[in-house]
């Protein structure tokens, strides 16, 4: 199979599953375990929902998900042309404080940070580029 593929669709919730199916199918063909496939799906949902809600808060546009496999690593790039938004810079929530007051968000980025092997953000050519890296572990 090709070791590189991408999909571009309007950045809207009704396309969420199409983006997720695209990335998990790509990873499944490479032999990633079910557990890692779930992590990929989850991190991608969190990244895309941030784009739908924040980068395109006041506008509409497209999101692009690109998958590349090299050197035993799946590199997923999530790109949009919305407002600058760096999810990695968002402070992690304190779950105990969240129970006590009315802040109830912020868990998405915690999940992304903990379930990827590497995560990077860049703003280039008026685009947000979030890179999620998953290492394929063999024989575990």
């Amino acid at each position, binding site marked *: 199979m090709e070791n590189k593929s991408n999909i571009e669709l309007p950045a809207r919730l009704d396309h969420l599953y199409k983006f997720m199916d695209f990335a998990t199918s790509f990873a499944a063909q490479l032999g990633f375990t079910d557990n890692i496939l779930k992590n990929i799906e989850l991190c991608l949902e969190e990244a895309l929902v941030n784009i739908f809600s924040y980068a395109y808060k006041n506008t509409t546009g497209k999101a692009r998900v690109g998958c590349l496999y090299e050197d035993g690593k799946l590199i997923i790039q999530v790109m949009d042309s919305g407002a600058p938004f760096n999810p990695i810079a968002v402070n992690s929530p304190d779950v105990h404080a969240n129970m006590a007051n009315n802040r109830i968000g912020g868990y998405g980025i915690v*999940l992304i940070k903990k379930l990827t092997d590497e995560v990077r953000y860049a703003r280039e050519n008026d685009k947000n580029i979030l890179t999620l890296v998953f290492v394929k572990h063999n024989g575990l």
Partner: protein
Amino acid sequence: MEVIKTKDSKAVVATVKGRIDTVTAPDFEKKITEIMEGENTSLVLDCSDLEYISSAGLRSILIISKALKLKGLFVYFSCLQGNVKEVFKISGFGSIFKIFETKEEALQSL
């Protein structure tokens, strides 16, 4: 996503099947709210058939939990599986909610 309600003398048991993600979380919240309407016992969420949860699902759980707390009621969890178990652990939800290996253990503790 499907929610099935059964009643025990000590709690309402809701068995959640499928996925709680950004698409299905509003429906999950609505179904649990309907299930708990007029109830005066706590809620056991049995997750043996819950395959996937994202942060949208975690948010729904916090909202449900806060609403029940106003009535002096609690949410307990049983049978967390694979990915769902991991999400509870890394988000810290495992330390703020009571989680049991089985539904029976959850009910016995009440």
